[in-house]
């Protein structure tokens, strides 16, 4: 039945259209946004949120859809960020070749790291991914080839970046670029997760042994998921470095990957728009909660309350704990949409709890 199918797309299309029209609106949301919707500051904030919506979704391909807990996703994002920055700034390449190089590197690194890491499972897999990401982080900081800028980071030399993306007035173009990225990531993820391979991923997530019993080898499928997820992350990195105008070491750390984990669980892992929502909301809170302390009512609070409230990560951490404890399906589970059961609910047993299994 084609008609119900098309209707299913409707909410998403409406959202994208609304987001695309945003830069022409002078709507002001005080507190939440730094200025009216058409101001460069706000568009910058929203662009970052959109990039992370895409990045969070790419992480969820691994975590929510295939059941792979990786602590090294930051590595591929960092590859996207740093290779693009280095190519543009140090080697003075044009934008498209730089982006292409970054994507290529991301693909190759993901294939290699994935091939090695996926030989083990569970915690061992998580640790190996952590190790490789940590290696990447060390390489960036130590900067043996003197290209990354080490701890100081690398500002983007905009010489080779198309004019459309330079300048405060053109922030809206960067915003639309980020929106386009989010849409592309969503479409790609939707394509692969609803494909036959995607069904195998879901099966692996539920019960890997059963997949092997059915005569399929899980390794190649996991590797594909790994490479797809990582390359998408690299793509996000390419756009990110344009949006923020530089590369910094913060994107290479394990803490960065952990924040991705927080994003997808917050939004609802295993649900595509859930993961994106999580990424968007997290980055919005992260960027904006800092100014909450300055808002009149909060500044007047006694230190005991004011201090925690002035720290975005404190609020996010507490929010995250509450979500994990009481809302395992994330924000997405608040919206009741009748869907075939895809959401990766952190398991709740239907029968009485039994201890010690």
């Amino acid at each position, binding site marked *: 039945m084609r008609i119900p199918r098309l209707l299913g797309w409707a909410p998403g299309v409406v959202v994208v259209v609304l987001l695309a029209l945003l830069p022409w609106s002078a709507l002001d949301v005080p507190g939440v946004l730094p200025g009216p919707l058409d101001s460069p500051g706000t568009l910058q904030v929203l662009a970052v949120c959109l990039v992370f919506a895409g990045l969070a979704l790419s992480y969820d391909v691994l975590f929510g859809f295939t059941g792979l807990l990786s602590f090294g996703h930051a590595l591929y994002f960092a590859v996207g960020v740093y290779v693009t920055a280095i190519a543009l700034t140090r080697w003075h390449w044009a934008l498209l070749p730089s982006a292409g190089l970054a994507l290529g590197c991301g693909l190759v690194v993901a294939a290699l790291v994935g091939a090695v890491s996926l030989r083990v499972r569970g915690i061992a897999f998580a*640790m190996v991914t952590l190790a490789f990401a940590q*290696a990447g982080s060390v390489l960036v900081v130590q900067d043996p080839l003197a290209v990354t800028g080490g701890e100081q980071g690398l500002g983007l030399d905009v010489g080779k970046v198309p004019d459309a993306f330079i300048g405060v007035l053109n922030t809206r173009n960067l915003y639309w670029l980020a929106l386009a990225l989010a849409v592309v990531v969503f479409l790609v993820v939707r394509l692969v997760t609803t494909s036959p391979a995607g069904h195998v991923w879901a099966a692996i997530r539920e019960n890997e042994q059963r997949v092997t019993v059915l005569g399929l080898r899980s390794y190649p499928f996991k590797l594909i998921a790994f490479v797809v997820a990582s390359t998408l992350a690299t793509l996000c990195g390419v756009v990110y470095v344009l949006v923020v105008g530089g590369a910094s070491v913060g994107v290479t*750390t394990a803490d960065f990957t952990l924040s991705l984990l927080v994003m997808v669980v917050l939004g609802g892992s295993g649900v595509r728009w859930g993961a994106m929502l999580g990424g968007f909301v997290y980055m919005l809170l992260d960027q904006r909660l800092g100014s909450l302390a300055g808002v009149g009512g909060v500044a007047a609070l006694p230190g005991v309350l004011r201090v925690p409230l002035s720290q975005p990560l404190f609020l996010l951490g507490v929010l995250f704990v509450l979500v994990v404890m009481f809302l395992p399906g994330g924000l997405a589970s608040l919206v009741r949409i009748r869907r075939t059961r895809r959401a990766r609910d952190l398991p709740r*047993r239907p029968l009485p*709890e039994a201890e010690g299994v």
Partner: protein
Amino acid sequence: MSTVLVLAVTGLGLGALYFLIASGLSLIFGLMHVLNFAHGALLAVGAYLGWWVASHLDVAAGLRLLVAAAVGAVTAAALAALLELGLVRRLYQREIAQVLVTVGVGLALVALLQGIWGSDPKTYPVPHWMVETTTVGGAAIPHGRLVTIAVGLVVLGLFVLFLRRTRFGLVVRAGVENRAMVTALGIDVRRAFTLVFALGGAAAGLAGALAGAYFGSVTPQLGSSLLIYAFIVVVIGGLGSVTGSAIAAVLVGLLQQFTNYYAASGIGDLSVVLLLAVVLLVRPQGLLGRPV
């Protein structure tokens, strides 16, 4: 020769710090299958409280350090016990959720520290005699390093005593091997869980207080940078094995120091990561862990 000696002592000192963090992590994972991401935050709490006590206490330098370490360890232990009782325990059977909860608490705790004391490094009032050196074999060995190593050895000894001589230790050893069977013998393992969490927290808090003295300053991020190496030590040593962590900590500390010096700065860190990858692929259970 003297260089080798200094490197060795520095490596062992660093290793001792890693061991203090790793020992708790290893037991917590071995017994409860929980990756405690709040461990780094507990370390930072120990570091800041230790610094605060050391900066405000007007007694002899050595005593100050002792009190600081004790306060750091006890507070971290209490926080860890609270974390286990209030949150982790309620998520029994949901292992990923337990890990996630520790991530959230870790984030919140570090942010809280940052809110209270700011993100700039605070200088630690290191006692004079810790900075002084003794010349051994032509090398100037800072006393601070020796203190750290000594504390590491003492804690190792205490852990081994606890595991081998007490009933709780027996329960923990058995539980690491086969948790279900322990409950099938009528023992409530949950009490052992809280105890292990608290002990791990104490060791982390102690490590924090010592790290402050070791590095000369404390920052809110102190925990996360050390935590990664601690995880690596835990995995190389074998999940659930305190002695394994001790051996791995020595290996990692020495490897890091020697390679950083003789090759290039940063290569040491890379080689540790390489060691982890190799161990995981060749012997996933680590040095002294149970076969996976």
